[in-house]
């Protein structure tokens, strides 16, 4: 009665024959081989573990062929001897060869431990998948049952079973497996439930795939990693418990060898022949360690090495980069911008100094104005914004240029310097307001803590200030909100609280990274109105990162359009949106359904073929050329950012003047998309001159 759960039977049985017939077509590779293989050989510990286990299995299976002695052969000339030429690992109290006995017992030990693994992991996985698929009632029945299983003392059950059926090791190990399965179920349940709630499971349900089909095809493959890890650990547990049972006399009947029994007899000679303990103990310990090492290696998440916080090495590297920038560009007091004016000059941001994510970005934000950084994802706008706060992710650092703010170059500021600036002078509001708030503490606690830390106020004073801040961000019942936890308030309210939190240090510059993207449009309009009035009342400046041109039109004084790590066009908002000069800006506006009313909605929207190139694929010339309707041979050379002629506008396009004169529009072309939508983006040199 052993449910056989192979690691990755991805296809349902009904499908198996057909799939076999068309093997090379729709291949369904088991997740196991793809995911775990490389991890298994990533660390010396797991390599040693695999090698040891493989050797043990090979040795135990082939044991009858090469063992020097029979297990019962007694050599009374060498009783309790240490290693000798005849007996490599010595002999026991009856002169039996230890090496032979250890390996003769190995097959049984490993095999019966495997029974525990199969029963425990198999049963646990099946129960978890049933509970995840079956709805609330099924889940609670299964969960209560496993709780009862976990609350009964396992040792007593095992001893009772031995009392009933005798020392039938496979049966005992299977019962042990059933007891352990309750724990495995607990481990698997959460994961199975989260897999069950994936959209692709919904999609399969819409297809009419049965519950069984969904569990086998969509849930089980996702569980394989956990299954393998748990199997390795349970394998070790099974071996130890089996050895323990044999040690207290419930092993295979004497004279049949077993590891536990051998350790037991060795323990009787621990004073007169201590060596006896060593070979068996070492083999058992090493096998358990090997199984654990494999489990650990497989259980490591793929990006466990890239922790969220920068490593010491990364911090050192950043400090080095910072001092290099500081040495290269001392702040010239005469050139320094006015008070509370942000001036970014030729900023570059890169990954570990090699791949560049942002190149040569310059913009100014005057006191009391709002600058929009706009573009598609992957254009470097968020990286630019985070560099203003010194909050770039680990491995990413400013590689050049200046961020001038109140007489200092923030690009050359150390982490410690930035701690004094963040929150006090420059604050951040992020896309997910809920992430800015700790779910464990009330809004009031978080707000007063920030005020006390940033402004050095007393408790009562800070509370009054917190109330005032909440009222300032438009919360009517501020008293009540102070006492609530973040999960009790709506998304729009949470963003207001997050803004209040950002305002607690009375910053002069607010960096807002997609602050309204996760909100409903009616709430978005309210938050934008709030930001606008804050700018007007406090003279604070705002850098807002957004992909929504409507948001730009609503709140920004100036805008910088970014594409592939560069500013391609910048200037007054009205100038740029009403009279765009760069083809990318032109295309973005043409693709925006908000730009058209229902009456004059086109049959087709304009699109930009292809996608934003990866940083490693940026060409030397214009980075937009490969997707541009107007690209020509002149675009292959690097393009400078030049005055566009309208006010203080700048544009990075060699054809900007030509386009302006001819009044060309981005047309909704019928491009053969499969040609342009190459799966692996390549650097293309486009030679199509439309002009």
């Amino acid at each position: 009665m052993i449910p056989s759960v192979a690691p990755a039977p991805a296809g349902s049985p009904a499908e198996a024959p057909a799939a076999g017939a068309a093997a090379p077509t729709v291949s369904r590779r088991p997740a196991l081989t793809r995911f775990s293989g490389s991890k298994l050989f990533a660390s010396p510990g797991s390599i040693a573990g695999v090698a040891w286990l493989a050797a043990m299995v090979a040795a135990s299976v082939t044991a009858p062929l090469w063992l020097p002695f029979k297990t019962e052969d007694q050599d009374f000339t060498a009783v309790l001897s240490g290693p000798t030429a005849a007996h490599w690992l010595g002999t026991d109290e009856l002169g039996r060869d230890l090496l032979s006995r250890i390996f003769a017992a190995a097959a049984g030990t490993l095999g019966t431990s495997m029974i525990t693994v199969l029963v425990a992991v198999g049963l646990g996985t099946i129960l978890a998948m049933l509970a995840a698929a079956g709805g609330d009632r099924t889940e609670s029945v299964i969960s209560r049952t496993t709780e009862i299983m976990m609350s009964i003392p396992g040792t007593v059950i095992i001893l009772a079973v031995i009392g009933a059926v005798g020392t039938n090791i496979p049966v005992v190990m299977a019962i042990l497996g059933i007891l352990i399965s309750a724990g495995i179920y607990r481990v698997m349940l959460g994961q199975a439930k989260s897999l069950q709630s994936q959209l692709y499971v919904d999609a399969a349900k819409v297809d009419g795939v049965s519950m069984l089909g969904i569990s086998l095809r969509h849930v089980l493959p996702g569980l394989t990693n956990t299954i393998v890890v748990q199997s390795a650990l349970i394998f070790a547990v099974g071996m130890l418990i089996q050895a323990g049972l044999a040690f207290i006399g419930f092993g295979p009947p004497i004279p049949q060898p077993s590891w536990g029994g051998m350790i037991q007899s060795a323990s009787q000679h621990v004073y007169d022949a201590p060596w006896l303990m060593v070979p068996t103990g070492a083999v058992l310990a090493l096998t358990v360690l090997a199984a654990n090492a494999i489990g650990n290696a497989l259980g490591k998440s793929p990006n466990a090495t890239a922790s969220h916080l920068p490593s010491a090495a990364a911090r050192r590297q950043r400090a080095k980069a910072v001092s290099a920038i500081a040495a290269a560009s001392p702040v010239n007091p005469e050139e320094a911008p006015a008070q509370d004016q942000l001036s970014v000059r030729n900023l570059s941001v890169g990954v570990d100094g090699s791949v560049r994510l942002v190149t040569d970005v310059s913009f100014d934000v005057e006191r009391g104005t709002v600058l929009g950084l706009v573009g598609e994802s992957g254009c470097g706008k968020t990286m630019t914004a985070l560099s203003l706060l010194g909050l770039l992710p680990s491995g990413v650092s400013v590689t050049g240029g200046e961020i001038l703010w109140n007489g200092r170059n923030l690009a050359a500021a150390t982490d410690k310097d930035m701690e004094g600036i963040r929150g006090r002078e420059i604050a951040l509001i992020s896309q997910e307001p809920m992430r800015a708030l700790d779910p464990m503490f009330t809004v009031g606690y978080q707000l007063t803590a920030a005020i006390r830390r940033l402004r050095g106020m007393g408790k009562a004073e800070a509370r009054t200030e917190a109330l005032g801040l909440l009222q300032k961000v438009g919360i009517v019942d501020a008293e009540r909100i102070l006492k609530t936890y973040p999960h009790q308030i709506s998304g729009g309210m949470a963003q207001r609280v997050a803004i209040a939190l950002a305002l607690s240090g009375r910053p002069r510059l607010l960096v807002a990274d997609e602050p309204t993207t996760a909100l409903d449009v009616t709430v978005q309009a309210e938050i934008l109105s709030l930001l606008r009035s804050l700018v007007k009342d406090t003279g604070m400046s705002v850098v807002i990162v957004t992909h929504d041109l409507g948001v730009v039109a609503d709140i920004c004084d100036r805008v910088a359009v970014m594409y592939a790590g560069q500013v391609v066009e910048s200037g007054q908002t009205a100038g740029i949106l009403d009279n765009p000069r760069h083809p990318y800006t032109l295309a973005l506006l043409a693709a925006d359904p908000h730009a058209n009313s229902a009456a004059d909605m086109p049959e087709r929207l304009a699109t930009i073929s292809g996608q934003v190139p990866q940083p490693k694929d940026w060409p030397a010339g214009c980075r937009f050329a490969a997707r541009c309707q107007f690209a020509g041979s002149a675009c292959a050379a690097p393009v400078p950012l030049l005055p566009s002629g309208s006010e203080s506008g700048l544009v990075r396009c060699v054809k900007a003047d030509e386009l302006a004169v001819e009044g060309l529009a981005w047309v909704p072309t019928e491009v053969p998309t499969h040609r342009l939508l190459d799966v692996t983006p390549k650097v293309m040199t486009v030679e199509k001159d439309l002009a």
Partner: protein
Amino acid sequence: MSIETPARQAPAAVLATPILEVKDLVVRYGRGRKAAAAPAAVDRVSFTIQPGETVGLVGESGSGKSTIGKAILGLQKVSAGSISYQGKDITHAGSGRRRALGSELRAVFQDPNSSLNPRQTVGASLAEPLRIRGVAAPDARDRAEAMLERVGLPREAVDRYPSQFSGGQRQRIAVARALICEPSLVVCDEAVSALDLSTQAQVLNLLADLRDERGLSYLFIAHDISVVQFLAQRVVVLYRGQVMESGPAAAVTEDPKHPFTQALVAASPVPRPAEQAERRTLRESMGVRTASSVSNAPGGCPFRQRCPLATELCATERPALRVVGGSDVACHYA
């Protein structure tokens, strides 16, 4: 609901049996007395979709728009009311009936990252709906390749995994998966919300092309009324599970009658600074109140606490849908 002439792309037979008819749909979450007392997630919603027609379902988060989609797809239990597909009741269809229905009634979901199984090749994902209907593997592969080509991806994509594609490409694959068994109705639940502007436009164009080419009907669920108005001939506006207004797309978006629709349209920003400034002034003068965290007592109009027109009548009597201009509007004062 009355049958209007769609603004664009008039479907061939307007008087045919509707492809989908939702009647007085009610969905409540949870069980027991507490759930019965809480306002329903979907509260007596009715609408129809004609063959070849696209109906947009618009509303804020928590308006029940996705729940309606799920109920139609059989992913959500229906508490009351009925859903008929081509005249046949499918409200409580079992898995067998669903399986038969699964090739005609299909879905494209919001998140392209999780709507495809990351552990299956694109080919395996596309073939799944065909395979469970008994299509042989080589045929399924051929159809998967052809469908990928139709949505603008190379044929070789069948052997790749979803992680090797960008968000827009994955959404194309999801569209291909929905259309591979020649459906007649596709439920698009926020199908383009997670995409960048240029990719969003590509997927919207693709959906429009496929509709015209195959005579498809769409139920297009989205929070963005501008996106809906690109694709839909008729729009249904929801607020807290109830229909506030429904009518031809142009009428609802250009001349909204219900105060909520007016607020929704006015809040959607346009990328023209001067016009946006006017819209902002207009919106601020409308006097729509902030969505408060005060829970709504059942009964009456769900929008009354935010509505500038609300009176005592709105708290006691739920307004019925009535014809105002070209649309049906649920408001006492519209």
